């Protein structure tokens, strides 16, 4: 809900993403902060930020497929892998530049995702989850056995370049990922607020009712997978240029489960929630990894094996606690706070 006194007096204003002056200021400050990260923080935090941006693009896609359209997807890492391999193949074998390979990687992942989206027409829930797990296995099998992707040797990429500039430094890679993530986030907001987004939500809430209302349920479900996989593919392309080596074991079911965890922690059905989920989970993970060596150095008698293992247990507990106490994610909690603040002193 909007704050008191804010009225949409025109369609353009009603459709606007940024509705108030404080929102505008907050967004500008946030973008400035993102731009300043390479200056404000050291290389470790910069690398983490780059990975957060890449993960954000992938999790945004999952949010659209699962959070908005309600289609369970445990194959997002495979879709990411398809994008990474396509980008790698096009860059190494055909010599295409990154601005072509990354979108084409997204497109190939979208096609792969669309095929699995078609299966969502007939099945749902647990059975759909199993089908998307099959995407992981098929991806693995194809990559290892098709002749173009390097098989067990993987693909090695040169850094992305634009004219004479090479994105080989951590800072340049960060800005590349930031630009792509910003475009994809803007696109995600547009999709979910448009006709397709409303169709996704209608199908998620009740696909029978949605069909009766005239929504093409088959096309909507398939489109949700197509869009979600496109995002994963673009994220995969960024990943390929970040690591500069693509191998099939970088895109596992375990990664897909982490992506789902990010959506759950952030909040299902919220673009901002997807971004928040990525930041929270990644920060906890990386915080523990960074803290571990210091703890071991301070208390060497405990041993690294115990310290790091305990931290992983703690991370798992945090996620489990979220599922038990706030299954609708952090964004739900934030929305409650925001509404309470705006309604104050009235209770509702």
């Amino acid at each position, binding site marked *: 809900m909007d704050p008191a006194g804010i009225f949409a007096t025109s369609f353009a204003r009603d459709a606007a993403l940024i509705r108030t002056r404080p929102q505008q200021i907050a967004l500008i400050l946030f973008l400035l902060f993102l731009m300043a990260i390479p200056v404000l923080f050291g290389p*470790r935090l910069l690398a983490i930020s780059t990975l957060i941006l890449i993960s954000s693009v992938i999790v945004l896609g999952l949010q659209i497929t699962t959070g908005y359209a309600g289609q369970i997807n445990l194959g997002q890492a495979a879709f990411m892998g398809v994008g990474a391999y396509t980008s790698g193949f096009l860059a190494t074998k055909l010599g295409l530049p990154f601005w072509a390979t990354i979108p084409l990687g997204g497109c190939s992942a979208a096609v792969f995702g669309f095929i699995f989206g078609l299966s969502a027409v007939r099945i749902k829930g647990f059975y759909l989850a199993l089908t998307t797990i099959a995407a992981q296995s098929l991806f693995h099998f194809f990559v290892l056995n098709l002749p173009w992707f390097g098989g067990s040797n993987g693909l090695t990429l040169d850094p992305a370049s634009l004219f004479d500039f090479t994105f080989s430094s951590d800072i340049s890679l960060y800005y590349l990922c930031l630009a792509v993530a910003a475009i994809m986030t803007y696109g995600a907001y547009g999709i979910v607020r448009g006709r397709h987004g409303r169709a996704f939500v209608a199908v998620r809430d009740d696909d029978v009712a949605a069909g009766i209302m005239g929504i093409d349920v088959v096309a909507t479900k398939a489109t949700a997978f197509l869009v979600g996989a496109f995002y994963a593919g673009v994220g995969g392309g960024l990943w390929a240029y970040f690591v*500069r080596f693509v191998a099939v074991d970088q895109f596992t079911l375990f990664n897909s489960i982490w992506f789902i965890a990010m959506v759950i922690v952030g909040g299902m059905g919220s673009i901002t929630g997807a971004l928040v989920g990525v930041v929270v989970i990644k920060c906890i993970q990386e915080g523990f*990894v960074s803290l571990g060596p210091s703890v071991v150095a301070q208390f060497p008698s405990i041993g690294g094996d115990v310290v790091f293992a305990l931290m992983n247990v703690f991370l798992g507990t945090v996620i489990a606690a979220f599922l038990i106490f706030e299954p609708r994610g952090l964004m739900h909690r934030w929305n409650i706070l925001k509404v309470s603040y705006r309604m104050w002193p009235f209770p509702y």
Partner: protein
Amino acid sequence: MKKLMSKWIAGAAAIVAVSALAPAASAETTYNIASIADFTGPYADIMKDLVGARHAAVDWWNDEVGKKMGIKIAIKDYDARYDAAQTASLWPGIKAELNPVAVLGVGGPDVAALQGRLPTDKVPMFMSTAAYGFAWKPDPWIFNPRPTYGHEAAAFFEWFRSSRGIKAPLKIAIISSEASPAYVDIAKGAQQYAKENPDKVELVETVFTEVQPTDLTTQVGRLIRKGAQVIDIQTNTAAVVATKRALQALGNTDVAIMMSSHNGLLASGKAIGGIKDLEGDYEVYGMAVPTEQKTNSHDFWELVVRKYKAPIGWSVASVMGFNQSLVALRAIEAAARKVGADKVDGDAVRTALMATPLASDQTFGFLPNLSYTNEAPFPVSGLTVNIATIKDGKYVIAAENAPVPVITKW
């Protein structure tokens, strides 16, 4: 009195001079080594020995070598969870924080994540495992002290054939899995050797099965019917257990299983319920075998446990930790001798490693003689392997320094 005063003054001056010089003589340059570990991933259970061995080797080197050279090595552990993404995100921070002259890696994900970065950052990485086909490229910055798993298997085939006096080609089978590209690569190496040496080896079949097989009776029965004499399993202990159970169920005790370091006789024996079940089977790798027999490497382990209170067992994992650390430390030592104790950097370490052959004695027999070239991340010639077996219920060395044959890159 005046004479006494001047003596006192001269003495005091001498003491001041010596005091002033003393810090300069004992000044140490500290260099950092980054120790990438897997405390929370699939190999967490062996990290205590592997990382403990790294620290023990550094302690020993600082005490026995570094002190004389005016160098101190500091080592810091990082948990990369055997995950390429984690290694990739950790590395820029490690580089900025430590500015390491060398990195110690765990496995394939570290290689995958850093092989593109290290040449630019000019920091060499030292591995403890056999080499990977995907990383077999010229101008390496990542170094393996062992050849590929395919090379190690090939060395075993040649030794087995000659020790048994087999004149015809040795009939081998491979059991692997497509679950991991590393496993596929391992199988490809042995296949390549078989293809290039039809007079020595006949590959009857490569069985690709699930990653953790529980029953391989059908597949193993087929291999027996095809006359397999050796089954090559360099994947994991589950595959060894399933194969052994199948051989036992089929009443066959003639077919030998060949394993590697990470799924060796002790680990697989533990999984199957006792090493006696693996009587007559083998493990092969290009580093010391951790049997209780008296060897230089065993003596070294005893020394560091006693002197530095290192809490590590005598195991394959500790041998791996020792081997990579000793290669890195000897390379730093060679670099310091070449460029000066205060001018060592990653580039100098890599150059010294390439230029200085490493004798087996320098690694206390943990490794054979090593001579790195620009051709590959592992020494392409002169390597040997050690072979262990279970004999009369005991874990013993079957052969030492069996030569590694040449295999062209697949």
